[in-house]
């Protein structure tokens, strides 16, 4: 989806239909130009920590937003979140859980791990477009991120 330029959004979503819908909404808002979609938690960690298929990722900066589904194959969303928030190199990255679940335990676990926001993935079209669109606008345009550090460690 993007070569060379820094990735702004990392979308971690195993369901291709949900990913397509999310992409459609972000594209309509012109927010999807620099988006990387990965389909499981292991790939998300490889991307963020420049391992595996992403060992040569040249981008200097980390994404400005991670949209994270919780119910993922291999490494779960909760584990991905735990890794991101426990590593000094990635802990400042805004992570928004975008999940079908509003299960108390999922919500609580996410906040305990330091999630930046928890959003319930709506079922209906108008709601879905509104929620995903507003999320993208808020985190990429309104939110003021910390300056990138030369060496986060």
């Amino acid at each position, binding site marked *: 989806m993007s070569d060379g330029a820094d990735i702004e959004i990392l979308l971690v979503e195993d369901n291709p239909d949900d990913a397509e*819908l999310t992409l459609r909404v972000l594209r309509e808002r012109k927010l999807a130009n620099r988006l990387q979609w990965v389909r499981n938690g292991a790939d998300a960690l490889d991307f963020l920590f420049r391992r595996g298929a992403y060992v040569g990722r040249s981008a200097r900066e980390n994404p400005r937003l991670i949209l994270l589904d919780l119910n993922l194959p291999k490494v779960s969303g909760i584990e991905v979140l735990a890794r991101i928030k426990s590593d000094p190199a990635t802990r400042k990255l805004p992570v928004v859980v975008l*999940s*079908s679940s509003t299960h108390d335990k999922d919500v609580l676990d996410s906040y305990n791990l330091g999630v930046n926001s928890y959003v319930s993935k*709506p*079922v*209906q079209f108008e709601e879905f477009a509104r929620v995903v669109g507003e999320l993208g606008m808020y985190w990429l345009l309104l939110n003021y991120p910390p300056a990138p550090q030369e060496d986060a460690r």
Partner: protein
Amino acid sequence: VADATGRLRNRSRRHDPPEAGAHIRELEQRLGSRERDLAAIAEVLEALSHAIAHELRAPLRAIDNFSQILLERHAGALDEEGVRLLRVVRRNAGRMGSLVSGVLAFAQAAQREPILTRFRFDALAAEVLQASSDSMGRTRVTLRLAPMPDWYADRAAVREVLLELLANALKFTGGRGDEGRIEISCRVVETELICAVSDNGAGFEQQYAHKLFRLFQRLHDAEEFDGLGVGLAVVRRLIEAQGGRVWASGAPGDGATISFALPRREVGHEVADSDGGTS
């Protein structure tokens, strides 16, 4: 459950002579197996509600969203009948989404462990009235509270119950315009707190009263009043989980009264002494 079992065991040890030991052991075994049954049921419920939340919603989202995209972007490829059929599909996807949400709300209410705190009932009732004020329209809502001591119960659950009962009454009273009346009255009768939400709305036939509290049971046509039949089923779960009970009375065209009773609960040993419950 574990707490109640512990109390039972203590009680039996205190009152029974030593030769009853075998009998007590047998009872304990039976209790233990009941506890395991309950834990297994709780686990199934947990797995089911998780499955509903995660797994059933995703395909619904795809049906709802992609059919809408089809309608918006590709309607030209369909004739009039094709568009109508697609709208039928979408209407049912929407209905399915609501039903799934309803089942989930019910399952979550059923799984909820009551969190008991001591609170002022009048403050809670005022809070509920305030929170519902936007949806009252022209219906006049009055609150009648008899003086009562602080109550010990699951405050958040009681709040949800009152909100739901008020919303329910407002829905069935809305058609009466300026004539709409709702009264919430609460008082203590012996060892129970009894609350009744009465309205002069559409009412129902008394012979169906027991069905009101069942999931997805409705006594009115969807065209007349929308709704899923979830609210009162949730109310019942929340009240019964605290050892209380619910009931309803009404008549067609003559309003309805939905009531609940909450037992006075002991706060550790604090209230137990004054009640003379354990000594």
